């Protein structure tokens, strides 16, 4: 990856050459990473990818085996009070201490010896922002999971940090609670701190909340960019499948054009797809099930180059969506459509359909 010149962008926090091994295994191996003022940065990756560890290194909560972390150009240390004032982290489990909600909220402020009046104001502020004023005097052991997460976030926000680290803020929550919490987070996160670093394993969450996403696989950064860029142009097979383009077709490149390639699939069909590869090279083509456009044979075509005729082989209803498998001359395509669309088209097993895909919805990766 190219290193942006430091003078161009305001880098609040910068990690360089960060290395962390644990029991012989490389947990984090990052050349450089930046956190900038005014942005929400997401560290996205599957469980065990090292993102929590990377967060701890950036927040100087754990020492790196090699490399350094610079805060406004100065090296950041765990015990440095100025850095600790600037960088606050909310760890994955909420870790509230015994006592009432208000006692927890005041903790960091008391440590900083903030005056009682300022404490009260700040606490009132975060209670309102997170809509938990009704829980002010509640003992911590009576809180539900969702309430505890809010309190944990409020506790950190009360300190008005420059950089706020949130480790998996929606993990460990029930589905319904999570949905509501995510909606609130979208609203809150913007104003919670000048810079936010969000750790998550959920691409949807990352794309919804972040300005910039860093995708991490096995301790390394494999792609970095704004959510649409990652979504539309995944850099590796891993990124593609992790962000939803989980279906792969194998084939060989037969022709290269300006921005696209022609791939002859092993099943015989020819696809025009976006990407770069050598002619004759083996490739994998990844696609998202929602990017396959289904129509009846009689309907007019779209601008999609890739057009195939086949039959509906299977239907898997999943609530409001239906996962559909199409058989097209030895090629199986997985498609995701709404129930409404299913009914409109009158689809059932055996019904002939036309499947189309835009070249930009097909991502090619050399094998």
């Amino acid at each position, binding site marked *: 990856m190219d290193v942006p010149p430091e003078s161009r962008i305001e880098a609040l926090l910068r990690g360089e050459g960060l290395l962390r091994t644990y029991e012989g295994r490389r947990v984090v191996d990052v050349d450089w990473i930046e956190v900038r003022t005014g942005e929400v940065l997401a560290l996205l990756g599957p469980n065990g990818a090292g993102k929590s560890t990377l967060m701890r290194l950036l927040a100087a909560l754990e020492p790196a085996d090699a490399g350094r972390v610079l805060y406004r150009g100065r090296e950041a240390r765990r015990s440095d009070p100025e850095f600790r004032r600037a960088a606050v982290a909310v760890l994955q489990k*909420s870790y509230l201490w015994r006592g009432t909600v208000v006692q927890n909220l005041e903790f960091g402020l008391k440590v900083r010896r903030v005056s009682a009046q300022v404490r009260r104001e700040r606490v009132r502020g975060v209670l309102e922002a997170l809509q938990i004023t009704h829980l002010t005097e509640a003992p911590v052991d009576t809180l539900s999971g969702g309430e505890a997460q809010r309190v944990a976030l409020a506790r950190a926000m009360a300190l008005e940090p420059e950089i706020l680290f949130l480790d998996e803020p929606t993990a460990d929550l029930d589905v319904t609670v999570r949905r509501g919490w995510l909606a609130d987070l979208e609203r809150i996160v913007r104003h919670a701190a000048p810079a936010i670093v969000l750790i998550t394993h959920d691409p949807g969450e990352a794309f919804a909340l972040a300005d910039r996403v860093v995708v991490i696989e096995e301790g390394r950064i494999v792609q970095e960019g704004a959510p649409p860029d990652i979504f539309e142009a995944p850099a590796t097979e891993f990124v593609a499948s992790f962000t939803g383009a989980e279906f792969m077709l194998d084939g060989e490149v037969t022709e290269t054009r300006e921005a696209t390639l022609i791939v002859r699939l092993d099943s015989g069909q020819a696809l025009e797809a976006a990407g770069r590869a050598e002619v004759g090279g083996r490739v994998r083509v990844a696609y998202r099930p929602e990017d396959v456009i289904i129509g009846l044979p009689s309907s007019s075509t779209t601008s999609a180059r890739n057009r195939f005729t086949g039959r509906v082989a299977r239907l898997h209803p999943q609530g409001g969506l239906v996962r559909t498998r199409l058989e097209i001359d030895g090629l199986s395509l997985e498609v995701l459509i709404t129930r409404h669309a299913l009914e409109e088209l009158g689809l059932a097993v055996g019904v002939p359909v036309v499947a189309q895909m835009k070249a930009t919805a097909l991502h090619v990766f050399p094998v």
Partner: protein
Amino acid sequence: MDVFVDAIRQAIQLLLSGDPYLWQIVSRSLQVSGLAVLLGLLAGIPLGTWLGLARFPGRGIAVALVNTGLALPPVVVGLFVYVTLSRQGPLGSLGWLYTPSAMVSAQFVLAAPYVAAITLAAVQSVPPDLRLQARALGASRWQALLLHLREARLSLMAAVAAGFGAVISEVGAVIMVGGNVHGETRVITTAIVLETRRGQFATAMALGLILLAIAFTANAFITRVQQAQPRRRRPLAS
């Protein structure tokens, strides 16, 4: 059966009359065991905390050793303390043998490992990332440690009560190093032995009732603490 009833009746009369011999013994018991447990706390809590949180080669053995502290036989401790404090022993020059200082010392040797073992378990039962979260909010290393201990405080209090109950009811160590001297080193347990031998069942029974009451109180406290452990409405995290 009459013997019992009579003895208990007389015992209660003795207690109610505020017999000075009795209360002087009870007060000494409380002072000796109380001081021993207090010193045991000062030594045992830091030791248990350190063992619970630090990692170093040989830690396993150290932990095993401290855990045997929960089962140290008082007579054996009495033996070692006696020999140590006797005139030929290494600390004979202190002249503590047959004085309350010897008794406090012996009970301290009993109480400290006890407190350390329970502190060790209590400290380990608090999630380690709790301290990290505290530091992530700006706490210093010591503030985070104190917080960790505070989280374990209920177990620690139960430990203290258990330790106190254990030392105040032991007789082996305290009779050997104290000598059961009237007015100086006679405590509840050693007095019960003597009064029973002398046939003074009422006195022995009165002291026995007091000791039972103390043991019961300590136990009631521990039970209350255990019942007060928080029960979450819904699990915070799986």
